[in-house]
């Protein structure tokens, strides 16, 4: 090991340990300040006071997505972070490659839409419901149904390992999307379900809190994220969490130690699915309109990219990854506007779209390749997973 890498490691250690070494009140105070900052993120004034130089007359603010509504971008980041946290349980903790994670998001979103929309066929055609239910009541139902679909999918497939599981889950998400697209008698096919209910609450002046303005939705999703983080942290440190680590590291050995591997894999699937469903119900509460176009395969891949980019097995990594995959292209778009980057180029009479938003998969592809080469454990890795990765690399190419 060169002295340089030692120094680097020591520096990294210091950063983490220094925070850990702070007295507990100081740590809590720092966390509170950080969380308050997070709640302030959508406010434009926050960026105006950052003190970064602003190009004159551009209306540009550093870090602010001037090309799109900052609160909207942050809300989207929020539900992707939730998805990444859910997939992190499945992939990061239990080590199960789920390529169709967005399917659970779809289940959550459709459940909310069907139960809260006055134009839902459950009401207009079948009279199953007399009137639309409030959004808040439908969220637990959405979570439960997503969880159930996770169990139903996992029951036959979790006996498979590795590649097989990936293919089956991929199929699952596609089935959900195609059914939603073509099925007419309840999901209303491509026409979708309009007038989906919003979360409850009114300002003192009688205006609804959750309407067209994105900021309250962002605050809501941020609050949910914080709650989910606490839940997942506790799970990861429990017997269940230890069983997941064992399964991920060596499934046979885990079984030989008396871990009921199938049961715990199913739990990971169900909990991940529940978080995915929760994310879907939050999104539906804002979106107003739900149809199958939202649930394309690329979203599943984007969530997967978020988890791997951030660092599988790490909560911080999932958050960072979920944030980056949504925020970065939106931010690039506004940067492009300010500095006059073209959104289209013409080569030999063909117009090629080069806006960051449409190129985001190219950008992520490149970014993922770079990260996976230079930092395969992810940007904010879990210490243990980093050690596992080293172990696996050793197997592939012995260094001794």
């Amino acid at each position: 090991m060169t002295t340089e890498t030692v120094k680097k490691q020591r520096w990294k250690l210091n950063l983490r340990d220094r925070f850990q070494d702070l007295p507990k009140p100081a740590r809590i105070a720092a966390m509170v300040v950080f969380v308050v900052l997070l709640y302030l993120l959508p406010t434009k004034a926050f960026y105006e006071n950052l003190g970064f130089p602003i190009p004159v007359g551009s209306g540009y603010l550093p870090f602010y997505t001037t090309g799109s509504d900052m609160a909207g971008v942050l809300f989207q980041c929020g539900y992707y972070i939730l998805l990444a946290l859910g997939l992190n349980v499945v992939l990061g903790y239990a080590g199960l490659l789920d390529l169709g994670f967005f399917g659970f998001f779809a289940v959550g979103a459709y459940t909310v839409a069907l139960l809260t929309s006055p134009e839902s066929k459950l009401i207009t055609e079948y009279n199953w419901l007399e009137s639309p239910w409030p959004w808040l009541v439908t969220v637990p139902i959405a979570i439960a149904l997503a969880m159930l679909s996770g169990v139903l999918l996992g029951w036959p497939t979790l006996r498979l390992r590795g590649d097989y599981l990936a293919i089956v889950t991929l199929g699952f998400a596609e089935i959900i999307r195609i059914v939603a697209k073509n099925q007419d008698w309840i999901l209303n096919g491509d026409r979708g379900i309009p007038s989906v209910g919003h979360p409850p609450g009114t300002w003192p002046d009688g205006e609804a809190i959750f309407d067209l303005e994105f900021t309250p939705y962002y605050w809501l999703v941020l609050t949910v994220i914080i709650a989910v983080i606490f839940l997942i942290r506790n799970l990861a440190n429990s017997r269940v969490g230890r069983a997941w680590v064992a399964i991920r590291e060596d499934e046979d050995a885990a079984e030989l130690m008396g871990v009921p591997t199938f049961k715990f894999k199913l739990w990971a699937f169900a909990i991940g699915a529940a978080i995915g469903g929760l994310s879907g119900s939050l999104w539906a509460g804002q979106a107003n309109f739900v149809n199958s176009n939202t649930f394309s395969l690329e979203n599943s891949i984007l969530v997967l990219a978020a988890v791997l980019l951030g660092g599988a097995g790490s909560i911080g990594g999932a958050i960072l990854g979920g944030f980056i995959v949504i925020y970065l292209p939106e931010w690039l778009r506004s940067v492009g506007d300010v500095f006059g980057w073209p959104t289209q180029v013409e080569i030999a009479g063909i117009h090629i779209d080069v806006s960051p938003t449409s190129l985001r998969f190219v950008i992520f592809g490149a970014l993922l390749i770079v990260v996976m080469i230079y930092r395969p454990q992810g940007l904010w890795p879990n210490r243990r997973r980093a050690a596992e990765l080293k172990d696996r690399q050793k197997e592939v190419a012995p260094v001794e």
Partner: protein
Amino acid sequence: MLLEIDDITLHYGRIQALHGISLHVNEGEIVALIGANGAGKSTIMRAISGLRAVSRGAIRFNGEDISKVRADLRVARGICQAPEGRGVFPGMTVQENLEMGAYIRRDHAAIAQDMERVFGLFPRLLERRKQAGGTLSGGEQQMLAVGRALMARPKLLLLDEPSMGLAPMIIQQIFTIITEINQQGTTVLLVEQNAQQALSRAHRAYVLETGNIVKEGTGADLLHDPAVKAAYLGVA
């Protein structure tokens, strides 16, 4: 009789790996299974610990047929295996690996005691307590795998090739400790390619060839058996 295997067969897909194996292990014994590569030694181990289902036959542990019992429940009944190729959890520290061994137990005081015992048997593990399992040397990983299996307080300890890939010195050490564990009251069933070591340590042994048991006897008998000598000990 602690373990009795009665005429089991086992298939990998369409390939039959075991052709009606019968063997038994008495309480307090060290029993060795020797044989060449592909003879089915590890397959027998996998059948006993429940990683693979048998196609036919019975596996009786303490008189109860466990051939349909789930692997994790067999651990609870007192069978614990240190898997082939060591199978330590690479990202967990030595201590966490040992704690995983005691996963089925909840008697925390006794677990702490057993951990002391394992550290007593393998002082090297104590030195490396906070180190990740994947960073240990081969011999240390083998010690960890054996120690981890002991943490389940098994009645029957299954060891799959504890000498694989280790230096002769370390092999000697490991086998000394296996004898010691046995003297402390744990029954041991052991699969080995290192027939010399296995036979000299075992009370009884079976010789396995292409899924059939072809010979059985006391360790000393087999050690002096001319056919065994020629095939497994490299002596003409």
